[in-house]
């Protein structure tokens, strides 16, 4: 339960209080109004006698004059006591039909006017117990009435510990029927509604509890409500067969006391003062009472009602006190509403006690059952509050979740970016490493060997130029093969060709370059491409150095599986001696091994042929290779 600000609470509290007060006032006013009809004769005095005579006992019988409503303990000498009640009323004119209204015909009975039977309702006998407790309205046959004094006679029997007989109203139909409808509604309909409501809501709460066993507070309340519903149902059973009377009464005690016990435990739990000892005492007290009734039966009925039930009062009052102090302390909407509901129920029970004990001049209508709907309302409110709270929480959780997902996404994106950066930087490092290695193995070592040679021997200028040219050429190859963004070797090969053509042309040699089945692109890893170019360059350098050729042909044949470079010259041709000691040829072979290519060098009739075969799949299985020419 969420604490709310006081201004809101105060307003809420006032609203709730006003609502309950209004309800109570309306109730009282309507009931009072039912009595304030001027044309209705209200019979306030009557006479009664104890007699099981089938006809009205004579005036000489033991008639006692009493005030209505009559409510005294029943004589205890026998279980079933038969009564005759009679009352007089005066009529001035008979122009209008008169109706007789019993606001509450508590124990049933046969009703006569001047000896004529007007209406009959069941009354207690050897086979059944009657708890009629309903208003009754009958037309008095006009012929049975006469001007002046008339007499009403009622015959009934009582088994209940108290002898109760309500008031009698005589009057015209309209006023009487209005009063009757009103009474019927309050005495009967509201009780039925409240019973139905209790049982339905109780069942609903029990289902809820079954689904969520940890919600003990609700479960407890559900049982309370069901107990109350059953109690009301039992209490309002008008005809009880005497065979079941004991069981009925037991059930009544069980449910009534059970309700008191459970609601007290509930109230303690609600006010966060749950106490195991208190609970055990209450339950034991409850069970002991029920067991005692089961053992001793009707004889201890009066004792149970007078002392046992009253015994619950201090315990119950303690729980009420707890909940009221809790409401005062917490001042949350739910706690305050619960406190008010308790107060309302207390008010009703005080009312019930007051009418039962005839402290006030109100009809004997019991309103305690109306307290339960107030409780229900509060509990539904609390449940609703929790439901809405949970809903809001779920929504906020969802929002938070979305937020977190978004944050996580952002983080993920960031880490991906970081990863990408790292990969790029890793690739750059690798590339740098490769270039360094290349510098070391290629240009670097070439420069170094040139330097050594220049240091140790007197080299002719031509040789130095050639050596340096080699260094430069190698550097160009490195730059060409590393520059492109894509892995296509064709432009790199083209660049090489472009340069070599110029070189050979400048030397006055014929340089031919032929492409066969040239694809749209030739994708190779840059280092593989570089090695291919180096082998090719070495081959061409060898021609320049040793072959003394006039025509040089470079042929490149492409296929899906490989590509082949064939270099042919018309020079003096390679001799075996050269091949064996030549560092250049060894270098070429080594590079071939590195990239999985094959190299064949053979002497032709005139000149030399170098064939380099580079399998594409072995180098890069993923390389795409497509023919368009």
């Amino acid at each position, binding site marked *: 339960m969420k604490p709310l600000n006081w201004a809101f609470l105060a307003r809420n509290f006032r609203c709730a209080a006003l609502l309950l007060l209004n309800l109570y006032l309306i109730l009282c006013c309507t009931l009072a109004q039912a009595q304030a009809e001027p044309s209705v004769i209200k019979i306030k005095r009557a006479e009664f006698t104890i007699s099981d005579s089938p006809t009205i006992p004579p005036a000489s019988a033991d008639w006692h004059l009493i005030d209505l409503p009559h409510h005294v303990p029943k004589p205890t000498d026998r279980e079933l006591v038969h009564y005759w009640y009679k009352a007089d009323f005066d009529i001035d004119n008979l122009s209008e039909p008169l109706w007789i209204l019993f606001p509450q015909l508590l124990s049933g009975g046969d009703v006569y006017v001047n000896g004529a039977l007007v209406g009959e309702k069941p009354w207690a006998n050897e086979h059944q117990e009657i708890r009629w407790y309903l208003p009754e309205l009958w037309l008095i046959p006009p012929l049975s009435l006469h001007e002046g004094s008339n007499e009403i006679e009622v015959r009934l029997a009582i088994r209940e510990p108290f002898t109760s007989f309500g008031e009698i109203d005589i009057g015209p139909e309209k006023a009487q029927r209005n009063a009757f409808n009103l009474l019927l509604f309050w005495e009967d309909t509201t009780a039925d509604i409240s019973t139905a409501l209790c049982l339905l809501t109780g069942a609903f709460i029990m289902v809820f509890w079954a689904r969520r066993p940890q919600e003990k507070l609700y479960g407890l309340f559900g049982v309370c409500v069901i107990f109350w519903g059953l109690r009301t149902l039992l209490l309002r059973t008008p005809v009880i067969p005497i065979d079941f009377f004991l069981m009925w009464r037991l059930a009544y005690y069980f449910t009534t006391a059970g309700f008191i016990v459970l609601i007290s435990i509930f109230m303690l739990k609600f006010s966060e003062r749950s106490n195991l000892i208190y609970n055990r005492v209450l339950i034991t007290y409850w069970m002991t009472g029920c067991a005692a009734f089961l053992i001793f039966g009707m004889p201890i009925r009066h004792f149970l009602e007078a002392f046992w039930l009253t015994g619950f009062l201090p315990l119950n009052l303690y729980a009420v006190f707890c909940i009221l102090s809790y409401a005062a302390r917490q001042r949350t909407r739910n706690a305050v509403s619960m406190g008010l509901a308790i107060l309302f129920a207390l008010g009703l029970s005080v009312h019930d006690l007051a009418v039962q004990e005839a402290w006030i001049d109100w009809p004997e209508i019991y309103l305690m059952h109306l307290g339960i709907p107030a409780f229900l309302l509060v509990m539904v409110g609390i449940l609703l509050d929790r439901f809405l709270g949970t809903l809001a929480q779920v929504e906020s959780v969802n929002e938070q979740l979305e937020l977190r997902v978004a944050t996580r996404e952002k983080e993920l994106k960031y880490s991906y970016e970081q990863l990408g950066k790292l990969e790029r930087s890793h690739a750059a490092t690798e590339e740098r490493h490769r270039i360094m290695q290349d510098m070391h193995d290629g240009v670097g070592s070439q420069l170094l060997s040139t330097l050594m040679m220049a240091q140790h021997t007197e080299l002719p200028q031509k040789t130095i130029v050639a050596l340096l040219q080699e260094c430069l050429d190698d550097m*160009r190859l490195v730059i060409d093969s590393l*520059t492109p963004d894509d892995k296509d070797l064709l*432009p*790199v090969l*083209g660049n090489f*060709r472009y340069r070599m053509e110029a070189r050979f042309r*400048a030397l006055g040699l014929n340089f031919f370059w032929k492409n066969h089945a040239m694809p749209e692109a030739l994708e190779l890893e840059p280092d593989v491409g570089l090695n291919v170019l180096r082998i090719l360059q070495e081959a061409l350098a060898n021609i320049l150095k040793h072959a003394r050729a006039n025509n040089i042909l470079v042929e490149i044949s492409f296929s899906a599986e490989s590509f082949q470079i064939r270099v042919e010259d018309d020079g003096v041709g390679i001799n075996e001696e050269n091949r064996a000691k030549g560092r250049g040829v060894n270098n070429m072979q080594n590079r071939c091994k590195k990239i999985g290519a094959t190299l064949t060098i053979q002497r032709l009739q005139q000149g030399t042929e170098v064939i380099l075969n580079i399998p594409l799949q072995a180098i890069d299985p993923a390389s795409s290779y497509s023919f368009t020419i």
Partner: protein
Amino acid sequence: MVTTVAIIEDNIEFLSRFRHVIESSPDFSFIGSAENGADGIALINNVKADAYLVDLGLPDINGIELIKLAVNIHPDCDVMVITMFADDAHVIQSIEAGATGYILKDSTSLDILECIRTLRDGGSPISPLIARRILQRIQPVIPNATVQRASASEMTGNANVAISNELLSEREYQVLQALSKGLSFKEIGSKYYISSHTVARHVKKIYRVLAVHSRGEAVYEATKLGILSA
């Protein structure tokens, strides 16, 4: 008719070599040189040459600026950039600035003279890697240019195709493609039944287009940034 040549180069060895090559040929005349950017600006302003040879790595000013200046002041001159490795990044930059040729520092004297002659004759040199780079500049995102081009008529909505269509003629585009695959001028010429001389002219035209296009892009960028009013 004698072709006048001015050289801006901070390396005295190279400068003297280039000067020697120019002076050794009767149809060329050396008319001035500068060894840094500031002198280069003065040279361009004061001396009108048919061809300027410009080194990019000057100590004070980026050679690109000198290329722009020369093209601006003498629209009918040819600017050649002197480069160590003819690496495409530098060459492309120079072409976009307005250079129509490039010359390697270790070129033979024959090559140097041949290159300038070709230039004055309306042609330009190009290496496959530079051709490839220009293609990428024109169509930066499309890997298979031929396929793209074949379906260009249907895909009129494609901005890149639209630009390349606008920039280059069909023939220029074909030439560029063939160049990027490593075919020689001669091979391209025989493939399309044109002389290798015409191929060289196509290349020069492509260079001019690239320079104009990059200036247009610069104007567009500047307009977008609010430097120039539209």
